[in-house]
């Protein structure tokens, strides 16, 4: 009885009694969701264009952030470092396309997936080799990102909004809009969509798959850098992030593997629900449920709608 109350009664009482706290929780969820969305965005870009589930997206985030911090630590100005970090991501994209993707065309999904795991192992080793394994702090201020926080008085209570989080949300929004424009307005963007729809068709209208892959990986690299900066600013830049990056998976399940808006909405859903559950119900289970909650949500969701929120119903043919 107490258990049922714990599930169905107390949490809601708590929410009603502390609306400001609820808002704070929702904001936290929103911020986490934004980051999930950004991570998922990186996945979606690559999956859409090449059908590869890029397990290395997480490590790319770390790697991008480490490069940035690393260049700065070497004495370069922040913006030069930023530019160089972008260049590093570009070089990475080019290398991956040359060395890995091109050689693995037409292999089964599992093989490509494994290759990206191999890639992430390599990048972990490479990153640690160059930058060392210990966590680093992000050069938030140097990049001109806001660091303060605003305290809002509401419902006789306060909600604290970190400026950085607001900036993060804004940057995420800009990135998404930018990508949307890129996809719909530019020639390369349209080519990307063509590739996503049909490789053969894309080839027949004279689009080079290799080029597109490199571009897509670069785009994912940019997203990774942005994610890395945001994430790094909130916590530290460390390799632990690669596990968190797996959260992108449930996000993609919810949003669909190929849908950009899906990634955003999925990310937000995961962010919100995870925080809410952790705060209001987590205690029942002893806490720490954030680690798996998203997956279980995705799993339950899958059972009822295997094609995702935005996917189309699949009709199997024989």
């Amino acid at each position: 009885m107490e258990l049922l109350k714990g599930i169905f009664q107390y949490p809601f009482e708590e929410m009603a009694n502390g609306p400001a706290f609820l808002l704070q929780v929702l904001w936290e969820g929103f911020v986490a969701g934004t980051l999930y969305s950004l991570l998922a965005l990186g996945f979606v870009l690559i999956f859409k264009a090449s059908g590869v589930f890029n397990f290395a997206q997480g490590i790319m985030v770390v790697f991008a952030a480490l490069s940035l911090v690393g260049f700065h630590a070497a004495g370069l100005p922040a913006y030069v470092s930023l530019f160089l970090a972008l260049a590093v991501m570009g070089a990475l994209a080019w290398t991956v396309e040359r060395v890995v993707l091109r050689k693995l065309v037409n292999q089964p999904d599992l093989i490509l997936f494994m290759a990206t795991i191999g890639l992430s192992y390599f990048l972990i080793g490479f990153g640690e080799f160059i930058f060392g394994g210990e966590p680093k702090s992000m050069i938030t201020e140097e990049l001109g990102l806001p660091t303060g926080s605003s305290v809002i008085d509401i419902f006789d209570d306060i909600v604290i909004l970190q400026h950085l989080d607001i900036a993060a949300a804004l940057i995420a929004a800009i990135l998404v809009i930018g990508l949307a424009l890129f996809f719909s307005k530019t020639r390369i963007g349209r080519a990307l969509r063509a590739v996503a729809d049909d490789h053969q068709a894309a080839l027949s209208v004279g689009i080079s798959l290799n080029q597109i892959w490199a571009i897509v990986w670069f785009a994912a690299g940019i997203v990774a850098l942005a994610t890395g900066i945001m994430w790094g600013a909130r916590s530290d830049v460390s390799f632990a992030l690669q596990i968190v990056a797996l959260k992108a998976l449930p996000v993609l399940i919810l949003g669909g593997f190929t849908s950009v808006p899906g990634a955003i909405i999925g990310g937000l859903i995961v962010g919100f629900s995870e925080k809410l559950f952790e705060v209001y119900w987590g205690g029942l289970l002893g806490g720490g449920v954030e680690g798996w909650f998203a997956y279980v949500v995705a799993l339950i969701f899958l059972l009822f709608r295997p094609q995702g929120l935005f996917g189309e119903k699949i009709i199997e043919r024989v």
Partner: protein
Amino acid sequence: MFYREAGQFKTTYKADQAIFPIFQDRMAIAIYLLIAFVAIPVFGNDFFITSMMIPFLIFSLAAIGLNILVGYTGQISLGTGAFMGVGAYACYKLTTIFPDINIIVLIISSGFFSAVIGMLFGLPSLRIKGFYLVVTTLAAQFFLEWCFIRIPWLYNYNDSGAIEVPQREVFGIIATGASATPTTRYLIVLAIVVVMTWIASNIIHGRIGRAWMMIRDMDIAAELMGIRPLNAKLSAFAVSSFYCGVAGAMMVFFWLGAAEVESFDINHSFLILFMVVIGGLGSLVGSFLGAAFIWILPVILRAIPRTFGLDINAATIEHVNFMIIGGLIIFFLIVEPHGLARLWGLAKQKLRVWPFPY
């Protein structure tokens, strides 16, 4: 070259259906077993047995388990680490509850616990295909990891949160705990691995294995041939998790001696998946080759600087190790996506058709 198949004709289906129909193959197996059971215990030093052979065998068993799921049934799983954990924690609890029962019996029994858990998390596979299934198994991985931390009952409310292996005897010989000799532990592990490999091979070559492969190759056609996806997939999940569970239990009891949740984290899932893919999907031999490659190679890599008298700090070696392994994985996937087993098979084929090229 060494294959002399002329005159090896079969007059019964029993002989023709044998798992090793070629005499030379049977001889080779006999030789491997002889080396494993006699030569290694006699000539191997403790380091070799403890740091190489025991973990190699245990990982091989886990790889066989995962291979049953991924390679034979075509269901991707990233939850191997956690399923191994279930076996380990189950065995730990069993030894606590039944201290007098033979440890080998308990090790095997613990496999049933992970089989049940595996089936539970395999249920969604009926509706979910391909990569979506990764999410299910990840859910298993993270949920179970959480359980290993948050349910203190599992580790007998130890302050350390770790499970520690008690001393147990098998037929009067100390088999587990700190005072068990490496050779004893090795021989027990070896015996279990050999028997379970034999059983896996039997299942794969029979009705059930065929049903798994039918689901893997063409699930629609399989269903139209009368295979129930539910039975086939769940049995694969059960058998696979059973193997992983036993491997997990052995890992703690015969190798590590103590373990906490880190021993069963997602990196272990990846490690085993690497072994399966590098070794070769859908191949038992591949599981062994993959385990050897992924486990023994780093051991060797670590030893190389020492042998050349180079003083490189351990962390750097570890980083380089990661790079080399990551690079090799990509290299292998590009050069031979069917894994070491394919190379093995090709080499065998070359020997069979020797001196001809085909």
